[in-house]
């Protein structure tokens, strides 16, 4: 009964979405405020309906209702409750429902925080989001219904893929989707502005916080996915340039470009046309990501949720959304004004150059991801495009972008003076170059890449210090802390996010340069030493988990005779799907991770064991979190709060922690 309620709620949601996608947009076009007024209640009703559907599916999972096909396919009676609930997005149909649910959640947020928008704008935004929602609901109801019944009911479910039975599964997909789908708001703002012809600085100011929030979620979501792969897949890597990772990384690159471009549109009224295009691009790439993951055209570690039949629908949907919005763009964009003038050497110019680099990088990732598919489709042979390709293409494109990242914030708007910039940056450059050259020697190994990575990281930090110093000199205040307080939060946010990139680069560089690994055959009682740490293998024990059995190894780790930690890596067998999973054991640390994963059992209780010493690896995710925190800090800026305080007491949840921290 409950699943039918969910199904029915989806049908109703589709009806509401159709109304929401048509009447308000028409109303805005003809100036009928009664029609426009439909948008808000419709969006809220839709949110409620999809929430009901979502909860119904959750209920079916919680109650182990194996007469629902999807539940029977992705869950099992042995599966613990939190994984049963996470199994809602464990495969194709439920992921789509999560997508739609998050879309309506964003819609609901728009209805809450849009009182300051003109009514035509608001109704167009909600209308566009309604149209997107129509596509997804229609998709679910026609070819991908999560509520489909299985009669007679299965005695038990086929279980969630053991790879996904991890706390990461509970939080990573929702975060990632919050980011993906969040770009739909930026997209809706852009389309609404194109429809209304009011593409101006105010539009940029309104859509900026939304875009930043989505970007923060996406950043955290990607970082979590990467961290999850690091500890779950058992070979200690953190990024594989897997097509599905690329699918989430491309919107991130476009979104990053968008944030910077929006800053210019907001502050200087320039780049409007380009900003709109980026907004369309970011969301289109999110849709493309969905297509890539869900259509089954990719073979990847994420291919647990593929089905080629549905590809056609998504492809058509993609064509309509991207084609439609680009057509609208081509029609309306040329009428947009230009904004203020600026010379090539100016903050605008540098931001634009950075945008070009980011988009070129995004294009390369796209090219590398799709190229094998095209070759295969054209029968020109099967090739693999993997990490060596992406590394060699991506790094040269990002290095100049990061260099510009240091210069940009120091350059004046409109027109900057190169000799003057060079003078202000000379010590930052000197310190960076010298440190980058010397530091690797101190650490005992010098390679060009190591030096380059450190150079970029130190460059970001030193230029951030210069930027902050100059900024502080320009604000008024009696003492240092007053002046610090007078610098706006959005500025702090920018600096923090940039420093996050530096932290990230340090992590990547150090891990690449100094990680050590060792594949050993360990008898009980034997030791192996790596990175100065001695691992003693104390044998394995059989462990019974809720839905698996495992061999759990015990490793005593010591350094210079002193105990560091005890690690318990596991080799689990999940009987339902008869899969063996490697659960690595990690001792995380600020300066290094120790990582042990069990290979295969050998004779006499010995095991093949893989040991890693990974210096600074946690900085990779730390850097991402700092970036996201920077974004959160930027949206807590008072100019956004001022606009809101007049209307709404509440703020978006993600801004809260950051605010408390600073206040």
């Amino acid at each position: 009964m409950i699943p039918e309620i969910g199904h029915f709620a989806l049908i109703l949601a589709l009806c509401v979405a159709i109304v929401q996608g048509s009447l308000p947009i028409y109303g805005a076009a003809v100036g009928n405020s009664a029609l426009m007024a439909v948008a808000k209640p419709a969006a809220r009703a839709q949110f409620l309906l999809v929430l009901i559907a979502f909860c119904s599916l959750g209920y079916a999972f919680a109650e182990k209702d194996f007469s629902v096909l999807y539940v029977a396919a992705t869950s099992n009676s042995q599966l613990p409750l939190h994984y049963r609930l996470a199994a809602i997005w464990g495969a194709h149909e439920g992921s789509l429902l999560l997508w739609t649910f998050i879309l309506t959640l964003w819609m609901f947020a728009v209805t809450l925080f849009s009182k300051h928008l003109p009514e035509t704008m608001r109704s167009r935004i909600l209308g566009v989001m309604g149209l997107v929602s129509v596509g997804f609901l229609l998709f679910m109801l026609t070819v991908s219904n999560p509520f489909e019944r299985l009669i007679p009911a299965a005695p038990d479910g086929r279980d969630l893929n053991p790879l996904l039975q991890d706390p990461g599964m509970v939080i990573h997909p929702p975060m990632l989707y919050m980011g993906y789908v969040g770009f739909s708001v930026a997209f809706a703002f852009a389309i609404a502005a194109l429809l209304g012809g009011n593409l101006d600085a105010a539009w940029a100011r309104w859509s900026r916080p939304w875009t930043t929030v989505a970007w923060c979620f996406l950043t955290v979501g990607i970082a979590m996915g990467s961290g999850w792969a690091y500890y779950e897949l058992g070979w200690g890597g953190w990024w594989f340039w897997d097509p599905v990772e690329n699918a989430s990384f491309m919107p991130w690159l476009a979104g990053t470009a968008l944030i910077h471009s929006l800053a210019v549109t907001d502050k200087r009224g320039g780049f409007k046309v380009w900003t709109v295009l980026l907004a369309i691009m970011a969301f289109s790439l999110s849709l493309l990501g969905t297509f890539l993951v869900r259509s089954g055209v990719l073979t990847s570690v994420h291919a647990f949720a593929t089905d080629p039949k549905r590809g056609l629908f998504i492809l058509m949907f993609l064509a309509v959304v991207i084609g439609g919005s680009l057509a609208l763009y081509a029609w309306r964009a040329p009428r947009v004004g230009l904004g203020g003038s600026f010379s090539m050497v100016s903050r605008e110019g540098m931001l634009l150059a950075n945008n070009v680099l980011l988009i070129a990088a995004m294009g390369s990732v796209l090219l590398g991801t799709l190229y094998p598919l095209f070759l295969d489709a054209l029968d020109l042979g099967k090739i693999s495009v993997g990490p060596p390709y992406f590394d060699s293409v991506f790094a040269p494109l990002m290095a100049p972008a990061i260099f510009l990242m240091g210069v940009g914030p120091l350059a004046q708007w409109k027109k900057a003076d190169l000799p003057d910039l060079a003078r202000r940056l000379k010590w930052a450059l000197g310190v960076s170059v010298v440190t980058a050259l010397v530091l690797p020697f101190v650490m005992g190994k010098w390679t060009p890449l190591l030096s380059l990575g450190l150079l970029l990281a130190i460059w970001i930090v030193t230029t951030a210090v210069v930027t902050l110093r100059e900024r502080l000199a320009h604000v008024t205040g009696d003492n240092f802390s007053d002046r610090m307080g007078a610098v706006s939060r959005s500025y702090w946010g920018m600096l923090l996010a940039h420093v996050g990139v530096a932290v990230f680069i340090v992590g990547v560089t150090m891990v690449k340069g100094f990680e050590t690994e060792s594949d050993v055959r360990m008898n009980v009682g034997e030791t192996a030493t790596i990175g100065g740490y001695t691992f003693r293998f104390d044998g394995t024990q059989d462990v019974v988990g809720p839905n698996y059995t495992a061999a759990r190894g015990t490793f005593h780790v010591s350094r210079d005779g002193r105990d560091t930690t005890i690690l318990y890596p596991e080799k689990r067998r999940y009987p339902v799907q008869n899969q063996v999973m490697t659960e690595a054991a990690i001792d995380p640390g600020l300066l290094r991770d120790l990582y042990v994963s069990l290979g295969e059992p050998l004779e006499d209780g010995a095991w093949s064991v893989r040991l890693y010493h990974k210096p600074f690896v946690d900085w990779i995710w730390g850097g991402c979190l700092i970036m996201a925190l920077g974004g959160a800090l930027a949206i807590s800026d008072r100019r956004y709060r001022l606009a809101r305080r007049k209307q709404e007491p509440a703020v978006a949840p993600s801004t809260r922690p950051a605010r408390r921290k600073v206040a």
Partner: protein
Amino acid sequence: MIWLAFIMAFVSGPVWAGEAQPLGDDPAVEARLKHLAVELRCLVCQNQTLADSNAPLAEDLRREVREMIVKDMTDKEIIDFLVERYGDFVLYRPPLKATTTLLWVGPFVLLTVGATVLAITLRRRARRVVDAPVTDEEHRRVEQLLAEGGKRS
């Protein structure tokens, strides 16, 4: 290989708190294997390198590559052998040839085109924009924001 492991087990087994033996017997061979394997695809896996995979077929292929290294074949000979047998699919770094030219030059073409379009647009734009048109509304906003900022500090 297996009997070697047996001997090792026999030799090192009873010695408690001894040093564990590396899986491969020659560290130099293992280093070269690793160097090669990170750029090779495990053919039966979803998307994993030969170095990372634990699949039995990957294990076999690693053993073969190890044997070729021991036979003192060069990296190029080994890769040619693998491509001969499995096709370009086995390489994570696609070789540069007619069908992959676009793949390799694409990113830099993108960058060049982007930079050129940027330069041309900016130049054309500079000619069209005579003066920065700051509207009254924007002026008012600036005043308002400055006033707010002043109040705070």
